[in-house]
């Protein structure tokens, strides 16, 4: 293949000469691709700007810490916001250990054979399963079969399985980045496999693992379809300011579903409120993502190899 390209390239490229025209073409091409990239990025800025502009009248500290009132036509986001936190935390508690261990298995334990390939394929496919199919699974497995009913626990477990590949992918990436020589040095000192992982591999890849965990949080916070039928409710009255107001065996409100219901089902909602909800949702997700990025950049600067 290599030699082939070279030969055809030779006949092709000798036709043009290096000159101003080429540089002109090059610049045109560069600008063309730059425009394409910008056109892709522009919507992000426009959308956030638009949401923010529309939400401005309602945004305040109280918006986050008061309950929706007046038939959800006014008030704040306390109940859905707290519900989202519950869902995220519980799903994180389940997904983080399984995901990290799973990546450790794939990277440190598994040999390169057909079984490992199947496991890898399963991870890829788990990431590709549509969110609504995860919802069906959650209904079939957790709500009905396991008898959890529609509850925060059932919804969180569904979210955990859905977001597992996020953690596995970034942890695998991080583990791969630890040089093999580190492990070999440790083994040569007589350490066992787990001791090597515990003392050398995990500490050296903690930044990547944390990034994965943070991304899981952002993914879980934004999902709607998987929690719609497994544990999120239209409305639930809870005490304001009490962070323990939900019980994980009962249902909760969630920001994402709240945005959906107030924008399609609740009449006469004050103009800014759906936009405010959207900007809080987007804002918290992007904030969490930004945290992951900052962490990644910071830890990269103090990388020791």
């Amino acid at each position, binding site marked *: 293949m290599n030699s082939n390209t070279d030969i055809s390239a030779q006949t092709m490229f000798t036709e043009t000469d290096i000159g101003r025209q080429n540089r002109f073409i090059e610049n045109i091409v560069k600008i063309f691709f730059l425009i394409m990239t910008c056109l892709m990025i522009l919507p992000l800025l426009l959308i956030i700007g638009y949401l923010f502009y529309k939400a401005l009248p309602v945004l305040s500290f109280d918006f986050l810490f008061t309950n929706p*009132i007046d038939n959800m036509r006014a008030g704040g986001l306390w109940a859905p916001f707290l519900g989202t936190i519950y869902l995220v935390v519980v799903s994180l508690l389940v997904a983080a250990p399984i995901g990290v261990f799973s990546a450790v298995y794939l990277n440190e334990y598994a040999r390169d054979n057909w079984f490992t390939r199947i496991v890898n394929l399963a991870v890829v496919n788990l990431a590709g399963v549509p969110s609504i199919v995860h919802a069906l699974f959650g209904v079939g497995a957790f709500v009905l079969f396991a008898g959890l009913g529609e509850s925060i626990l059932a919804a969180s477990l569904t979210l955990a399985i859905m977001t597992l590949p996020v953690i596995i992918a970034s942890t695998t990436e991080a583990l791969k980045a630890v040089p093999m020589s580190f492990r070999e040095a440790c083994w040569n000192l007589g350490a066992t496999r787990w001791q090597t992982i515990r003392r050398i591999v995990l500490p050296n890849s903690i930044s990547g693992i944390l990034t994965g965990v943070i991304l899981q949080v952002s993914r879980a916070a934004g999902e709607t379809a998987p929690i719609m039928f497994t544990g999120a409710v239209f409305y639930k*009255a809870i005490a304001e300011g009490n962070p323990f107001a939900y019980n994980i065996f009962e*249902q909760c409100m969630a920001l994402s579903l709240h945005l959906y219901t107030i924008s399609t*089902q609740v*009449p006469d909602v004050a103009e800014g409120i759906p936009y405010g909800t959207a900007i809080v949702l987007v804002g918290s997700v992007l904030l969490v993502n930004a945290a992951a990025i900052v962490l990644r950049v910071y830890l990269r600067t103090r990388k020791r190899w």
Partner: protein
Amino acid sequence: MKKISLISYAIIAILVFSVYGFVIHGEKQTGHEPSQSIKNKGSDTMVNLAQAWAEAYSGISDTASVEVSGGGSGTGVAALINGTVDIANCSRQIKPKEMQQAFENTGKEPIEFIVGYDALAVYVHKDNPLDKITIPQLAEIYGEEGKLKKWDQLGIANAGCQSDKIIRISRQSNSGTYFYFREALLGKDRDFEIGSLDLHGSKDVVEVIGRTLCAIGYSGMGYATDHVKMLEVATSSDMPYYAPNLENVIAKTYPIARPLYMYSLGEPTGEVKAYLDWIFSAEGQKIVEELGFVPLTSN
């Protein structure tokens, strides 16, 4: 390092065993918890009403909090059959078969309460010249192989609507609203033509119509906004037309109105009974009216 892990083990131990202690403690107290959760589920038509009740009730009762979910009348009845809700909201009457299933499953008969009335209004854009419509006309617009496809067939010139086509806005095919509207228009043996926009919320219907000159749709009377107009409806062209409003619904002259039901499993007791009693009180019924539904006349 060693010291730190020992301390963390100790903390875990204390946590685990205090949970253990609390569980035993909790076992002892089962049955009289300080705050009880009333599970309320069902009809999407009623979900806003149910939510409003729940919200108002949370300010009145310290001993109960109401959990509301929508999903539709079918979901509510299904949950009632499974015994997983305390109150099911239903925009249709429960079927005898479902009644029996619930009895077989839970040993309790569902008890019916009519908590208010809902009138389905037929909406068009506020600039649409149409003012009134008959049930047979609606049937021809929505029904399978219906003949009314264009606005000029209704005898109006709908300016600003290219191609003159009537855009039908409907609801997803298993919502209580859809069922009721279909039955009111077509009886039991004809279906709606596919190809309508089957929106997922009563509000969505009105919002879309408010932006679309050529659209017609149906939704609860309480969902009206400034951008839409409610049509007067007659059962046939030689009958009088009635607007969807409180008087006409109470007088039962408006043809597309229906009662709203709540079902409990067995005679309600305790907190559930208190909640239902409050719903029937003047205060509860006031909320019905505030939300654009029709309160019970007896009050």
